[in-house]
């Protein structure tokens, strides 16, 4: 361990020193017009947050808004917020806390306090983010990548939103690995509501993380701030799908500012949600077609299922209707109408074969009659 574990801390804090530090950081977040950058600069200069907190009037004395800040400082009751969070079984993780990810502290504007449900153990982590209104292909790709990354011991970070985010968390859980959801609301406020079950599963097998205090409801302004935490926790960001104005691109901007790698999963040139990843690829993002693409680039050990790609293995047209359907689906999801045309089967035979495959759990059928191989590969 180097002398500077997490500057200015040379080793993790514990006991009353940690409690004092937590209370000081919570207090600092309660002050108006004092942002993460200022707090980080002060702490690095002073050595400890409690010291900053104690000498706050002195630190702000030259500022024009000093009076307001000092008034807030006098009124602040950080101990109350700490007690509230603990009552709601949330951990408070601040710089100096053993669980605070060093990687996150090194970004320009690290969150001074993280409210955590679950266990915040980051390790090597990759963010998988993308559109809320994703295509079946995108959901499949996100789930598949997350599953293989998780199986290879990588923590999958995402934002618990609808669409790609949800699929990424789900895939990581399926892969038996760890996943962290960074929220734009308090960790006790699950948004969107349909992800309540997913959130529980993540809390049990990873962590729900937020820099917003308990009970905070989601607001539009929260999500960009949330995104910098997603990329800050991660070694790289993978964009699966998104339009030109997608929130995923905000995460990419954060990632670039933080010096993280950016990957994109190529999509159909006809799909509007392929615009963001395709534009990123054109601008030099690395292509991710499998977990190994990412692991290789990050110089991490490859996934156990070596060479598993998102593309199916092709597969020669078999004789049974089910085999013929699977052979066509290897090239990607297709509507039943297209399957009928491509396999030459009668609509009746194709329909029967799809139902049989669905009951076996080999394929799944999405809205719009779209049939896709489950988990994205022939071996899934």
């Amino acid at each position, binding site marked *: 361990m180097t002398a500077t574990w997490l500057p200015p801390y040379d080793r993790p804090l514990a006991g009353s020193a940690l409690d004092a530090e937590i209370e000081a950081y919570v207090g600092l977040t309660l002050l108006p017009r004092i942002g993460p950058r200022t707090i980080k600069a002060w702490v690095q200069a002073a050595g400890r947050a409690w010291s900053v907190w104690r000498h706050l009037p002195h630190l702000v004395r030259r500022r024009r808004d000093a009076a307001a800040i000092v008034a807030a400082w006098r009124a602040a009751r950080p101990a109350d917020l700490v007690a509230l969070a603990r009552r709601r079984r949330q951990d408070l993780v601040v710089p100096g806390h053993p669980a605070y990810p060093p990687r996150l502290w090194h970004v320009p504007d690290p969150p001074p306090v993280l409210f955590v449900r679950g266990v915040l153990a980051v390790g090597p982590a990759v963010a998988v983010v993308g559109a809320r209104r994703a295509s079946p292909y995108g959901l499949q790709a996100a789930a598949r990548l997350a599953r293989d990354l998780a199986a290879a011991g990588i923590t999958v970070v995402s934002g618990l939103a609808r669409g790609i985010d949800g699929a990424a968390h789900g895939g990581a859980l399926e892969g038996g690995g760890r996943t962290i959801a960074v929220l734009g609301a308090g960790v006790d406020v699950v948004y969107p509501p*349909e992800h309540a079950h997913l959130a529980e599963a993540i809390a049990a097998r990873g962590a729900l993380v937020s820099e917003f205090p308990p009970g905070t409801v989601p607001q539009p302004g929260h999500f960009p701030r949330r995104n910098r935490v997603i990329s800050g926790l991660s070694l790289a960001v993978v964009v699966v799908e998104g339009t030109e104005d997608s929130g995923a691109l905000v995460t990419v901007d954060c990632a670039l500012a933080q010096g993280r790698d950016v990957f994109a999963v190529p999509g159909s040139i006809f799909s509007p949600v392929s615009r963001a990843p395709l534009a990123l690829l054109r601008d030099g993002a690395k292509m991710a077609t499998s977990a190994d693409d990412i692991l290789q680039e990050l110089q991490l050990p490859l996934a156990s299922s070596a060479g598993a790609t998102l593309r199916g293995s092709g597969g020669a047209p078999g004789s049974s209707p089910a085999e013929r359907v699977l052979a066509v689906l290897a090239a990607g999801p297709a509507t039943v109408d297209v399957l009928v045309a491509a396999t030459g089967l009668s609509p009746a035979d194709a329909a029967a074969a799809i139902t049989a495959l669905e009951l076996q759990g080999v394929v799944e059928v999405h809205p719009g009659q779209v049939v896709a191989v489950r988990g994205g590969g022939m071996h899934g």
Partner: protein
Amino acid sequence: MLATIRSATLAGLEAVPVSVEVDVGPGLPTFTIVGLPDAAVQEARERVRAAIRNSGYEMPPRRIVVNLAPADRRKEGPALDLPIALGVLVATGQLPARTVDGYLALGELALDGALRPVPGVLSVAETARRTRARGLLAPAASAGEAAVVEEVRVYALDSLRAVVDHLIGVRPVPPAPPPVCATGRQASSLDLADVRGQPVACRALEVAAAGGLNLLLVGPPGVGKTMLARRLPTILPPLTRDEAVDVTRIYSVAGRLPAGAGLVWERPFRAPHHTASASALAGGGVIPRPGEVTLAHHGVLFLDELPEFRHDALEVLREPLEEGLITVARVHSVVRFPARFMLVAAMNPCPCGFRGDPQRSCRCTPAQVQRYLARISGPLLDRIDLHVEVPRPPTDAVLAGGPGEGSAAVRARVVAARARARDRHRYAGDGATADSGPVAPEALVFVRRCADRLVLGARATRRLLRVARAIADLEGVEAVQVAHVAEAVRYRVFDRYAPTPT
């Protein structure tokens, strides 16, 4: 002097006999009609007066009283013009009373004495048969439908003058010949082969036609849901003569029969707009007239944009979907109209319409989609056997794809399937098991597996079996097999549109 002319007025689809009594007596010149006439009957006074004068007869300046018996039943429309005019002529001695004896007369008069078509002449002809009338004096343009009733002599006449000349034997007219049984009926210009790149939807249409099942098409705007629905009548079995008479009677009563038409041989296709009111669908009016569900009898009722229909309007559909008829209750009468139709409904998959569309992205939240789908009431959805998604076909499939199978070939299979179903019902009696007929044991196991895996309720499972039965009938197989059930599962998308827990 008193004269009595027999006629009839409509009550629902039936015509009830009416006696038109005309008394011409001394007193100040007046012309009064009593016996619950509506406004159109009241105005008959002016038409009758002018028609008599312009036909070369005399309208005496005396006190004329017309009574329409039975006096407690409301009379409607201008069909009583002709009997009133004949009554005046008889009562004033311009026409011998015995010449009109035993005839039923009806028709609207023009001011020049010409006879205009009126609704419901087929029903009146049936009343004439029941009351053993000597003949029916009807407007020439309406006589074709009336002549369907072969036991009644129908005289097609085009003016008051022609009626009188016929009655007094100056220019007698032969009875109108019954319309030709148009077995070689004019082919519809629509054909299933026009549909390109949507084999699944075409197949679902065929299954629905074979089983006489109700169908819901779910797909983004502009993919051809309406086009598909319009082609359903072209693959249904041709109307039998009895069915054609039923349809003709309904259209005649509704006043929607083209003048001069004989029997209607085409299966009705009705597509009411989603702003239609409950009474537009069910039928209504002081004297109830058939609504859309009845006009679709023996045919297809197509409801586009199903969730946009008013709730009370959709509730109207429950009775006809279950019993094949509709009861219209009014202050003066309760009428039951036949309403046995195939329901075809269409809707978008979500409020913006692009859910699942590969080319456009959907802008609806899951909650919005849920609310939209929930607008269709459960009881209505329960009565729809097939729900099928119609995705947007790839453009090249539409442009380059050859024509699919033509309506004639599909219709042949549908007719054969229906014949098999009829035979089975005959042998099985009308028990509950007749619904799905024999089912292979392994198919039953498969149904149970599907029910577990897809979480189907008892009612959905029954519907699934019905659809599978229709598929087996199309294939000419006695017992429902696994493959039939497996295909049927594809036509039950709503069973799985429930919110997906992630």
